[in-house]
């Protein structure tokens, strides 16, 4: 086939990009070469629209061993232990084929982690669906949950936490973000930088098939009516093979045979070989006849673009081939020497004894286009003036029940019951808490992790929204007694070629950067998913933050369930009663405008550190951060989990009770304090000049406030626990 501009455009390249390729190569590429360019220059692999802005992120810190740019980020948690972690999107494939899309998303992120030598110890996910009323939602949700479970459960890595939301902006583009944490000895971390000449390049894992061809390009474009036709671009996962690959790789990593290793993810053999060579400033020569193929007569074009799963590329020390082969034979996996490193600084492909492609590496990596796309700032919306007389017709207890049963608040047990969250025997905080917690096997340490996003806030004002999610992640970790260390982010946005969407991206990144810098909560890994758009309708900006923290002694872990009758309950942090963008305003007043709550980074840090201090001194026995739904929602969950009620004190001052109970002001926690600790708690709060309210006392079997609220635990449970199950069964 002759390569023309039209063929290039079919491959997702722009006209100007094709001319640039011809100019750089000083000739027209052949079809295989064009395919390689299209794979490396698409948005998904090249970050061409985002790179300029991502550079500004705060990525350094005392505990950071590896920041963005590797397969995953790495942080130091002491005693030679390090945690490798990353979050990644698999949005486009999951909408087309929910089971396989979600499953391979989980498989891909786990490979990123064990590629670095780490054994995966926990999975998390953040999944977002269209309106519950939309005809596709139920099936997509069922498929995604089954896919995540099907893969993670089989590998035997616990899924410890997650987040699920529903919003009509995801009707045509669901989001599936998967995160994995792995544990590694910090002196035994493996990287993807090739080194040394004439080193054997090894292919291991599954055979290469025709699945997933053009997957990365598909994830770099918007959807239209014909998305069903894109099903063949979705990869098919085999968790069993991945489990074998995991064990085989970790076995080989026990000694010094590996120079560099890279998993074949998006754009398969193309991006893995180019990235390893590029990082090592080397060339690479591959003989494609040696690549183990699942199907007959595969062409170089297909071999280079296949996104078959469960494959790795390794640059091995010379002389270690037999040793390595033995390990992969033991695990019944393919092992093939398919090429070598060279000093040509080119990628050279041989097929049937002929050279079928030859491209200088730097054209594919460093010379890939970078765009400074135009973007538009989002103005902070005017704060709304609520008519408080209108509130009076609403009964507090009805409002609470309505909020607890809302799709974005209610219990997600139906989902996490389908994930194995206890395998590996170290899960000490299961899904449903503020963060999941796993022990570092064989030690007293524990690692906490949480995933968060706030699309409504980000949509209303991206800069504030970006800051807010970082803070929410920070609070969730502190609420379980963990010191926040670092974050990974998955930046899900619409079409970057539109000024509004690009502006949302730029300002969210700015917000994330500002907050992570202030809180000393650096970004160590992440990914960007643009083009979440169908027929011109994009998603709300949804950056997802995956936070990781450390509990030095797992016995210091906190949970949110109320513990003991008679204990005092405080709200730490000040409540001004911000209702704009709250679920109360949305669901009970049908009011969707207004700015998100203000984020005050000084308060976040000061209050967060104070709460952490209280937990380290064992002065509080339960803790929960206040987020969507405000104080009453938070306190209800503490009641339900602990099967204990609360008697709420009369409010002091002039604040409106609806604003107080449902306002979504930031930097707040609810804590339970035993009487004996009260004096010291107050001293500490005063020392840090932290505002607090005496909310009430753990009491009886109901949540009670004056004559306004008297709801039994069963009534709260009825509202909170069953929405999702009923929805899925209907």
């Amino acid at each position, binding site marked *: 086939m002759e390569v023309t501009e039209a063929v290039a455009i079919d491959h997702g390249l722009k006209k100007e990009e094709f001319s640039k390729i011809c100019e750089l190569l000083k000739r027209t590429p052949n079809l295989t070469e064009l395919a390689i360019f299209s794979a490396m220059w698409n948005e998904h692999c090249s970050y061409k629209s985002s790179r300029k802005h991502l550079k500004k992120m705060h990525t350094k810190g005392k505990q950071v061993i590896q920041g963005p740019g590797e397969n995953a980020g790495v942080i130091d948690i002491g005693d030679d232990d390090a945690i490798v972690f990353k979050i990644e999107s698999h949005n486009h494939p999951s909408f087309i084929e929910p089971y396989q899309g979600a499953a391979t998303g989980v498989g891909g992120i786990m490979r990123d982690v064990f590629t670095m030598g780490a054994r995966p110890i926990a999975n998390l996910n953040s999944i977002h669906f269209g309106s519950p009323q939309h005809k596709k939602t139920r099936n997509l949700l069922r498929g995604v949950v089954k896919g995540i479970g*099907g893969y993670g459960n*089989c590998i035997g890595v616990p899924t410890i936490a997650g987040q699920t939301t529903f919003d009509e902006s995801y009707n045509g583009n669901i989001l599936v973000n998967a995160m994995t944490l792995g544990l590694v000895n910090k002196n035994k971390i493996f990287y993807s930088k090739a080194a040394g000449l004439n080193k054997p390049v090894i292919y291991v894992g599954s055979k290469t098939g025709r699945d997933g061809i053009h997957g990365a390009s598909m994830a770099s474009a918007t959807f239209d009516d014909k998305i069903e036709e894109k099903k063949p671009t979705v990869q098919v996962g085999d968790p069993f093979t991945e489990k*074998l690959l995991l064990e085989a790789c970790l076995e080989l990593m026990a000694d010094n045979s590996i120079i560099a290793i890279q998993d074949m993810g998006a754009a398969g053999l193309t991006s893995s070989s180019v990235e390893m060579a590029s990082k090592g400033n080397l060339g690479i020569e591959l003989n494609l006849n040696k690549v183990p193929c699942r199907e007959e007569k595969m062409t170089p074009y297909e071999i280079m673009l296949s996104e078959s799963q469960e494959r790795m590329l390794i640059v091995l020390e010379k002389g270690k081939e037999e040793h390595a082969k033995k390990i992969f034979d033991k695990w019944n996996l393919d092992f093939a020497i398919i090429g070598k490193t060279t000093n040509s600084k080119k990628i050279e492909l041989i097929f049937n004894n002929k050279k079928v492609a030859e491209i200088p590496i730097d054209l594919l990596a460093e010379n890939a286009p970078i765009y400074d796309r135009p973007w538009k700032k989002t103005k902070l919306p005017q704060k709304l003036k609520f008519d408080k007389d209108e509130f009076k017709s609403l009964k507090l207890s009805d409002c609470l029940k309505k909020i607890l049963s809302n799709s974005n608040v209610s219990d997600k047990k139906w989902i996490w019951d*389908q994930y*194995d969250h206890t*395998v590996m*025997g170290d899960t000490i905080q299961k899904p449903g808490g503020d963060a999941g917690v796993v*022990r570092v096997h064989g030690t007293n340490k524990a690692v906490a992790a949480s995933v968060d996003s706030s699309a409504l806030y980000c949509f209303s004002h991206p800069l504030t929204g970006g800051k807010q999610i970082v803070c929410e992640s920070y609070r969730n970790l502190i609420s379980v007694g963990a010191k926040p260390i670092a974050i990974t982010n998955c930046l899900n946005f619409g079409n970057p070629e539109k000024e509004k969407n690009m502006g949302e991206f730029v300002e969210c990144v700015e917000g994330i950067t500002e907050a992570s810098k202030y809180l000393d909560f650096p970004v160590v890994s992440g990914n960007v998913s643009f083009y979440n758009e169908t027929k011109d309708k994009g998603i709300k900006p949804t950056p997802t933050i995956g936070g990781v923290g450390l509990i030095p002694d*797992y*016995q210091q872990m906190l949970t949110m369930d109320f513990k003991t009758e008679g204990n005092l309950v405080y709200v730490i942090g000040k409540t001004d009663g911000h209702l704009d963008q709250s679920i109360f305003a949305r669901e009970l007043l049908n009011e969707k405008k207004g700015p998100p709550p203000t984020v005050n980074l000084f308060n976040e840090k000061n209050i967060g550190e104070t709460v952490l201090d209280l937990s380290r001194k064992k002065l509080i026995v339960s803790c929960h951060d206040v987020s969507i739904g405000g104080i009453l929602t938070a306190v209800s969950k503490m009641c339900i989990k602990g099967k204990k009620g609360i008697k709420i004190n009369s409010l002091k001052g002039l604040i409106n009770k609806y604003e107080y109970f449902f306002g979504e002001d930031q930097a707040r926690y609810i804590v339970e304090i035993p009487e004996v600790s009260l004096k010291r708690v107050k001293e500490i709060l005063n020392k840090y000049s932290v505002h607090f309210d005496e909310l009430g006392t753990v009491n009886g079997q109901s949540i009670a406030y004056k004559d306004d609220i008297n709801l039994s635990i069963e009534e709260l449970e009825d509202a909170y626990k069953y929405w999702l199950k009923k929805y899925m069964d209907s």
Partner: protein
Amino acid sequence: MRSSVIIFPGSNCDRDMDVALKKFGFKNQMVWHNDQSIPKSDLIVLPGGFSYGDYLRCGSIASKSKIIKSVIDFANSGGLVLGICNGFQILTETGLLNGILQQNKFLNFICCNVFVKVKDKQNKYFKDLKKDVLELHIAHNEGNYFCSDDELKSLEDNNQIAVTYCGKDGSENETTNPNGAIKNIAGIFNKNKNVLGMMPHPERMIDKYLSGEDGSLFFKNILDNFK
């Protein structure tokens, strides 16, 4: 007491079982599926997981693996063989235990705490166990035990039903049955009661910081009965 845990490709509770056994004082060793023989043991454990990817049928390929003949010989000579979850599925596939494990009634994987009632204490696993109801943990997609009427009658007549799903108070009914298993069966013995297969994972319940501690009772009891 010496124990061996068999690792099949795809096993994923092998380490958890090793940790649990050692915690209570078993001298445990790990045995690879391709080995010909098993080191001298007093207990052989087939751990949970997805042996051979659960392809074909759960446990079916493992039941034809190289090591399995030694397991069968050991069982037939009266040795203790314990199969948990996928291990239970393998034991039914080998024929050491009757019946099969079908997909859960509600077609979903299920991971949660359950209560099980100990139905028979005339055996080396549960003899003198201080509790009649244990809180254990399940995590499976195919745990719905089923067998023919004749097999069920024979299981009942010989007291081969080991544990059944129940409520906290020991009540057995449809609401306390998580997966649709016939007669709420969570685990069964062979005729000689040296082979035990059960879906719940005692190895995940050995520490108050995990889901609970009733698994500890189970392991300690095996050791006590061996002494």
